[in-house]
């Protein structure tokens, strides 16, 4: 919707077709849709319930439309960003030129929770660190896309994109009409091609597997969906064994070598010999096999340093430093108190800003300006002046709204967008991505466990 709360004109034909159906037909179709998801098991598990209740991710049938030209710009911006992030990760795990040139203070990297000093000097296949990225975007009041965060570790949600599209085609074929929509179903093939591209042993069919934490993970459906779509094995940690620096899977016919692991387990849990000793999910010796270059991991170990909330502030600098370009995508303005101009701005606007301590997480050491009392603001002013390096600040952000079906009528609801980017021989961006919608009026929480849902995202051909 535009800034006046009106639906943008290119929604006309789709809205017309949607309401051409009549309320009872529409309701019937929505029921069918939910049943379809339930039948196919397109569900996520609600935690904290012993029986493992499964729920369908709520779905809104009004697709999000993105004009082709608008998307092309977003795509270019995402490609630029992932290119810079991968160059940054290579640099950080090798010469660390960006630190030596003073563009990023070394403390930022050393203090990042997900930096893995053990991997400095280790080469990864084809120098790619983030192979799969799920970047969260929002649109501001001016309609610009802003990067909210880069998920460069184990981003999830892509299966919903593919399932939503398949369901829309099946239940609402008439909505598509003559609207040309860019396809999304090449994703599994692109993902597999990327995985094969990074195989250390270049055989005709490198053995790629998907490593899942297990059936209790909320994204298990996605893991098994992707494995099925790619025709590769889905393995758990206990299915893999490392011998003499090579990784094998245990099969009914003995051990079989593994070349590439698309892992959906966090670094901390991946190898109990190196990281968390109490991990029941990992593979002992895996990190050693990676170090020796005998197996490739997607994403590589240690990418978390690039999607850290503090590093985030420096991504525009990275793009300038490595690519000598201006960032195409904007991000939420982040003010760094150690820069004099920024500090001055922060101190003048404390009641409007959100201030975060750079090295603390989980909301500790944070000031929410609009909700803070005078004393708290003054306390932070003192802290920032004393230790400017430790503080960043951001304005409170506006999420755009999108027409959403509520009780048979269209109303505006807040949405975000998570496009998926694959980084292999070339960089491929899935057309559109996962649009999540906060189904409750005024809510900003697009999370499904708290009243969030999703909708199909259509990138228009023209």
């Amino acid at each position, binding site marked *: 919707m535009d800034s006046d709360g009106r639906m943008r004109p290119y929604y006309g034909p789709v809205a017309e077709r949607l309401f051409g159906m009549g309320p009872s037909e529409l309701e019937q179709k929505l029921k069918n849709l939910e049943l379809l998801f339930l039948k196919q098991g397109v569900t996520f598990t609600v935690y904290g319930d012993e029986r493992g209740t499964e729920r369908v991710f709520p779905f809104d049938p009004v697709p999000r439309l993105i004009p082709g030209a608008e998307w092309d710009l977003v795509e270019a911006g995402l490609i630029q960003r992932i290119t810079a992030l991968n160059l940054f990760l290579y640099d950080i795990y090798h010469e660390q030129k960006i630190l030596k040139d003073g563009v990023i203070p070394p403390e930022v990297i050393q203090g990042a929770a997900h930096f893995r000093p053990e991997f400095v000097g280790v080469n990864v296949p084809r120098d790619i660190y983030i192979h799969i990225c799920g970047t969260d975007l929002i649109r501001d009041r001016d309609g610009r896309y802003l990067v909210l965060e880069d998920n460069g570790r184990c981003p999830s*949600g892509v299966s919903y994109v593919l399932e939503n599209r398949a369901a829309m085609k099946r239940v609402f074929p008439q909505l598509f009409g003559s609207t040309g929509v860019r396809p999304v179903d090449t994703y599994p093939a692109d993902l597999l091609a990327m995985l094969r591209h990074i195989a250390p042993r270049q055989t005709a069919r490198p053995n790629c597997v998907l490593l899942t934490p297990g059936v209790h993970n909320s994204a298990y459906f996605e893991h098994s969906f992707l494995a099925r779509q790619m025709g590769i094995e889905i393995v758990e940690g206990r299915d893999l064994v490392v011998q003499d620096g090579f990784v094998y899977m245990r099969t009914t016919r003995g051990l079989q070598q593994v070349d590439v692991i698309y892992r959906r387990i966090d670094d901390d849990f991946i190898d*109990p010999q190196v990281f968390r000793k109490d991990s029941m999910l990992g593979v002992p010796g895996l990190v050693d096999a990676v170090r020796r270059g005998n197996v490739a991991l997607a994403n590589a170990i240690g990418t978390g340093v690039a999607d850290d909330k503090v590093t985030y502030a420096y991504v525009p600098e990275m793009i300038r430093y490595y690519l000598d370009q201006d960032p195409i995508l904007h991000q939420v*303005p982040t003010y760094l108190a150690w820069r004099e*101009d920024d500090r001055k*701005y922060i101190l003048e606007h404390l009641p409007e800003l959100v201030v975060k301590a750079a090295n603390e997480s989980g909301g500790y050491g944070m000031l929410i300006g609009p*909700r803070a009392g005078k004393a708290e603001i003054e306390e932070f002013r003192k802290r920032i002046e004393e230790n400017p390096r430790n503080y960043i600040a951001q304005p409170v952000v506006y999420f755009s709204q999108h027409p959403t079906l509520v009780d048979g009528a269209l109303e505006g609801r807040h949405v975000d967008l998570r496009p998926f980017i694959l980084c292999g021989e070339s960089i491929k961006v899935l057309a559109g991505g996962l649009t999540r919608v906060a189904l409750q009026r005024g809510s900003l929480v697009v999370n499904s466990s708290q009243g969030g849902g999703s909708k199909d995202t259509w990138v228009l051909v023209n």
Partner: protein
Amino acid sequence: MLSRVADHMYWMSRYIERAENLARLMQVSVELLLDGTSAGRARASGSDEYWLPVLAATAMEGTFQLLYPTPKSGDVAHFLTLDEQNPDSILSCLREARENARTVRDQITDEMWAELNHIYLLVSSKAGADLLENSPQTFFEKIIESALRFDGITSATLARTEGWHFLQLGRSLERADKTSRFLDIKTQSADPVEGALESLQWGTILRACSAQTSYRRNHGTEFTLERVLDMLLFSTDFPRSVRFCVRAADDMLHHISGTPTGQYSNKCEKHAGSLLAELNFSSTSDVLKRGLHEYIDDLQVALNETGQAIFETYVFLPQDTSRPQVLLPPWDPLGYHLQKQQEQQQQQSASGTVPVAPTWLRAASPGQCGLSQTGPTP
């Protein structure tokens, strides 16, 4: 095929077969009540006694007594059907089957999954409980039909690779086990009956095995011990006879390993082959000489040994010594809860409980989200 996957395929089909057989047995037992048997009289007097042979046939008395030290009317029926605490109730079997299927969804076809998911969702729903209450026959029928459909769908859609072989293996062994247990009902019966009632009992057992039509075609309408045993234990062409099922299991094992039939290359083939030979060269009179109950006991021991040998040959993972020892709390000795918890912690989630918006953003109330962005772009 991954060893773990083979295990899941095997158990998925075993559990479906188990649920189906229990439904069959309960279905014919309900019918039996309508006749003038002691069980029928028990039913008329409001007692649960008529379910006791079913408990015995499924070897669940122990679990039942543990869960229901002072049983009330209706407890047995609930225990057998929808009781989640009973690991072998119809509901629990279907849940286990579905859980195994969910884990290997990349290995089975969408149609197989849809069928299994459908019956589980029905049985676990309020509608399922209502159906059981109001029309138990329909309830049992639905489960039997769904299991048969699953079988048909599997045979029509699943490639004949290792997954198929493990699936058929699990089904055959479970079926052999259940047919032999049903026969044991006769020996477990509290008050021995004769004449018309005995005939009725045999008829029930045959129907529980879907064997009445084949029986009549071969032996007419008179049910005798020898003929029923001959059919359910030794028939070479009736698909639920113990011999038929063991032969099918033996075939599958040889498909899996590639060893010619009649030879063996591992422990499970040796067990299955010996059992098959035993069945091939036995007759009803041997059974009666040993005693029916004892014979069935031996049979079940042999079936269990085969199952155990399959596990040891294809699935069992010797303790990985490279894995650091994790200290586990006494209430979680196998680390099940710890593992589950860790599985749940992973991912930059799009749908789980990890908040999507940064915490500071969620903390802001809706009215404050519209604050404009001003100031220099960093």
